């Protein structure tokens, strides 16, 4: 009876184990290759991927290359060896992405690219932000602000990401369109190289010193905003020069309503991650997938922040509570 019972127990356990194994074995595996999960943007995107992949019944593993090409290739080789169902990649750069796509193609694994993009190669879909439109919209926010203060005869300085990048060019072009429409002139454009605090501070100082009529600084990034704020304060221009950013930091949710920042154009990394998984899922199901998906960037200002707050929290900051 006990034996029987044990037998039955083992059989049941065995079945359970098999079922479990079966159920585990049945979950297709997706790999997310991220350039650097230490960076909040990618980390938020990763959360979006994790959440949506889980929700759709995929096993999802994320690898962070920590901005190292060799690691990225090793993780790619690893994923290929593991025979994953699909790869979602945010490559270290668009050239490296070509090799990843080639390796995946040789192994017959579909790839969805989430942001950054590729120089060439075959992929299922490319999910990106509409940098041009986002920059245009945030430009309009700044123009309105300057008009309200009657500062529109002053000029605007730009601290940009490198302009050889596609997204850098799109951001500058969109923003300048808004400035031209408002009749506001651009003072100067400084391209970031090191993306450091000091660089941002120095560039801001130079813009203020060289342009007596400077009324605003547009920072095409988010994390070094403090460098710009400190430079304005140190130049004795606090309250006389506005700051506006691209992308988001959690503290922006407080700074924008307080008027420390005029506004920020916020990409939606969480949403991007979700959309990348959705695209892969559709492909695996054999559905038609859009080859390029451009997600909107949120133009956030003190007037709109309250209304946009739930969306910002979820899609921008990946906060689900």
């Amino acid at each position, binding site marked *: 009876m006990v034996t029987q019972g044990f037998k039955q127990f083992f059989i049941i356990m065995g079945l359970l184990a098999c079922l479990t194994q079966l159920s585990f074995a049945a979950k297709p595996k997706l790999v997310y290759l991220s350039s650097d999960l230490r960076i909040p943007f990618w980390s938020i995107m990763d959360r979006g991927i994790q959440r949506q992949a889980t929700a759709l019944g995929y096993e999802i593993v994320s690898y962070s290359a920590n901005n190292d090409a060799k690691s*990225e290739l090793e993780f790619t*080789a690893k994923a290929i060896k593991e025979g994953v169902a699909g790869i979602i990649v945010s490559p270290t750069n668009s*050239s*490296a992405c*070509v090799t990843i796509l080639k*390796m995946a193609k040789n192994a017959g694994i579909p790839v969805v690219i989430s942001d950054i993009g590729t120089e060439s190669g075959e992929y299922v879909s490319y999910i990106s932000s509409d940098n041009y439109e986002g920059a245009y919209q945030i430009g309009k926010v700044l123009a309105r602000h300057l008009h309200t203060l009657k500062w529109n005869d002053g000029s605007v300085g730009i601290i940009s990401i490198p302009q050889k990048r596609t997204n850098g060019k799109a951001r500058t072009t969109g923003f300048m369109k808004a400035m031209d429409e408002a009749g506001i002139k651009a003072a100067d454009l400084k391209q970031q190289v090191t993306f450091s605090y000091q660089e941002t501070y120095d560039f801001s100082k130079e813009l203020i010193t060289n342009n007596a009529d400077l009324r605003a600084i547009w920072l095409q990034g988010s994390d070094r905003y403090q460098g710009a704020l400190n430079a304005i304060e140190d130049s004795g221009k606090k309250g006389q020069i506005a700051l506006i950013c691209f992308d988001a930091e959690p503290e922006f949710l407080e700074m924008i309503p307080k008027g420390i920042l005029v506004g920020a154009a916020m990409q939606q990394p969480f949403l991007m991650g979700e959309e990348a998984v959705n695209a892969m899922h559709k492909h695996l199901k054999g559905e038609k997938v859009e080859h390029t998906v451009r997600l909107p960037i949120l133009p956030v200002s003190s007037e709109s922040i309250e209304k946009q707050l739930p969306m910002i929290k979820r899609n921008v900051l990946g906060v689900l509570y």
Partner: protein
Amino acid sequence: MVFGVGKRSLYIDFLAVIVVTIIAVVSLYGLYIHSKMKEHFNHQIQHETYITIQALEKNLATLLSSYAINEYEKLVYTEMELKEPLAIVVNDFNMAKVMGEEQYITGFIALHEGKIDSFESSNPIHLEALKASFYHEKRHLIDADNQQIGEITVYMSDTKMKQKLQEAFIDTIVGVILLILILIFILLLAIKRMALVPLTQMTCTISNADSDGIPTTAIPHMHYKEIAIVAESINAMLETIKSSRILLHESHEEAIKLLALNRLIIETIPDLLWLKDADGKYLLCNDKFEQLYGAKEQDIIGKCDYDFVEPALADFFRANDVKAMQAGHAVANEERLAFASDGRMGLFQTTKVPLVKEDGTVIGVMGIAHDVTEYKMLIDELDKLRKLYLSLLNTIPLNIVRFDIQGKITFANKTFLNLLHVKHEDLIGTNGYDLYPPMIAEEYRQKDEKVILSKKMLQTTHIFSLPPHMTQKIIEVIRIPILDGEENVKEIQVIFWDVTEKISKEQELEYSAKHDSLTGLPNRFLFNELIQKAMYRCKRKEKLLALLFIDLDGFKTINDSFGHEAGDEVLKTIAGRLEAIFRTEDVIARIGGDEFVVAVSELSSENEIIALIDRLLIDIHQPIFYQNEQLHELHISASVGVTFYPQEEDIGSEALLRQSDQAMYQAKLQGKNRYHVFDLHVNSFLKTNQKRIEEIEDAIKNDAFALFYQPKVDMKEGRVIGFEALLRWQHPEEGLLYPDSFLPLLHHDKTLMVLLGEWVFKTAFRQYALWREKGFSFGLSINMSAHEFKEPKMFTLIQGLLKEYAINPEAIELEILETSALEDMKKAKEIIQHYKALGLKIALDDFGTGYSTLSYLKELPVDTLKIDKSFVIDMLHDSGSFSILEAAMGLADAFRCDVVAEGVESIEHGTMLVQLGFRYAQGYVVAKAMPAQSVMGWVSHYEGFTEWQKIHCSMVDKNLIFASIEHCHWFHMLQNYVTNPKHNARPELNSSLCRFGEWMNKDAKKTYRNTEALSFLESLHEQIHTKAQAMVMQKTDEASRLKTLEEIQNLHRIIVYHIKQLS
């Protein structure tokens, strides 16, 4: 002739040799080039491989170590595109490790041209292609740590090399063929042009031969040496043959020509020419000779003279022929021949010359007969002429003698022979110069030589000492050179005649022309000559010359009282006394009625003359006794003007004489019977005037004067009545000058004044005629100076001008200056009457400034009085002037003259003149004098002044005008006194003592009943005097004085206004 028939052409052989040789050479060369190219391509492939791998090696190692697979793949792909190798294969050890494989091979391969595929290590076609590659090179890729991290292999294909070689081969073949063809073509062309064509030309030329088989033309010049030598040799041969033929031909021609020339000479010769043999038979004759015998040459030849003429004549001819042949030389004779052709007779000089052979044998005779008929006649004619000429020379009363250039006399006419009392034969051949004493002979010889040298006729006057007694005569001599055929003087013919009597008559005439017939002293003409010599002498010897101008005082009285004979006696006596006082070398002359001049030369100082003059004055003053019916003791004195020479400035004899004349005039002015030395300082001032006078003379000549015209108007009717012509001088340096600045200089120069007057009248009349053509109908006034007025020439001129321009004389008014013209009332009246008789009007200019007496106005029949502008200008504030104007108006009324007021400068002046009864005016307010061309335009616009036209003279109260003027006068005096008290009289300051005050108290109160107006005027008058007194008495500063004066002036105006209101 055709050469080379049936022979093969040189050209075919040349072609065969050239083609074979060129093909062989060029083919060998092509093979050599091909092998070289192959070698070159091999080397090039290796080099390109090396370059490619070298470039990749460096860059790939870095990219491999940074795992930038896509980057190195792009690099490799780019290299594939650029260098076009067969394949580039990379073995990436790092990726092999990442992938966990033995090797990770990537790369690209180009199997088909233009298409690059990714290299697949598992693809057998790819591997096969690599194996078959022509060349490959492998390199290890080393990282920074010197670790091998991969390999790269570059594979090169020879396909391209083969293709290139093939292309090159085809190119070479095509090139070679082309080259061969071109070379063959050029060589053949060259051979043809350089060798075959010249050879063909040569054969063609040679084949073109004449009937003798000798080529007619030379072979043309050949370019190439070798062919040219052949051609020239042939040509030389041909030339030699031709020269021989020509020489032969020429000798023949020469002989013919010589014969023709001989014949031509024989026929051309104007004489008769013939040849006979020793027997007298004709061998030859010319056409002139044919005429003699009336037969043709062919009919004469072979015959003798007996066949043509009488036997006697034929004998004569024959005898002469024989004579010549025997003599062995030419024999001449004259013979008269009758021509058988036309019966003409002629005298001929015949020369017969024997014809002698080389061995001395006489074979015949040549005859030439020359016609001398005309020559003989000419000789006879000349002989007759010579005789006629000789008879002429011998009968003419002139002395004619001819001698050769040595002086030998070759001819002398009878007159000359008679003069010398010699026979012709005794004189001919003798030396002409021997007839005279050596000195005279020498003089004649010089004159003859002059004629010989100049070859021209020479006429002179000599004293001729007549041999044998050497009686002196004055003769006129003409020497005529007689030239030979070579234009050299061969002889001199001298013709001379006695002029002694004629000369002495001329001398007498000259003496009387240069001397005063009464006194025998030199006259002005001779004096001028003599004084110039004296001046020159003094200047040269640095001595002084004193020129005395002596004018007798009271000579006219003696003449008038005692008659001209007495006057002549006085003059003769004075002349004698002068001659007694001065030295013979001094020049004494009588230059006018009672005017003598003496030039005393070679003085050491001016003082030397003074003593002489004192003596002169005394001597002249000595009584002169004159006897007619009774004896008269006449007394006369002299005024003497003295000047000296030389002076600081160069001076001529005329000017010196003028100086002494002026000095004499001063002596006269100083009281006569004295002398006055000319003052040079005074003279310099006069010189300035003189210069001005000369300028005026030039200005008249150069038409530098102009007439301006000032209008005269009727003030009441506002119309123009005429113009006055006014003289202006357009001076080249000083601009437009008014007459005041130059006319006074002419007051003493009557001639110039009259000359200028003539110019004025001519110009004015001419202008007036022009205006009249344009419808001008006003009068024209022309000024006339005192000189002009008295000058009868002017009368004639004006009379002529009136006729010339057919001008109505009444339109012309002569303006005569009251002061200057009327010195001699009687004369003036006479002249005026003359002018009036012509119909002209007469105006008295500047009336009021001269005598202005009632009597003279009564005497002189003038038509117009022109009131002097000084009165008109002052009339507004000078009651004196006003009164004169009033009086003038009265006079004009009385004598029924028109009155014209001059100097009307303002409307105010005109107003007062009209009130006084004046009608005509002239002055600036109307118009200034204007150039002739402006006159018509001005007239068409002139309308007059309404202020003048509306005045009614009958209503004018002259008393009130007078009162106004009095007050104006007082105010002006006050004004002047205040401005300059030192030089101006103080006006009466007491209101009841001033003239206006007196008028107020007496006349005004009687005349005007408006007591209210009078008392107001009185109070104003009182007020003005109070102010004036205060101003004059109190010493205030200038500013307040002027202010008070202004107040007084205002009061003055008010007073004048209220005076007018009294009427």
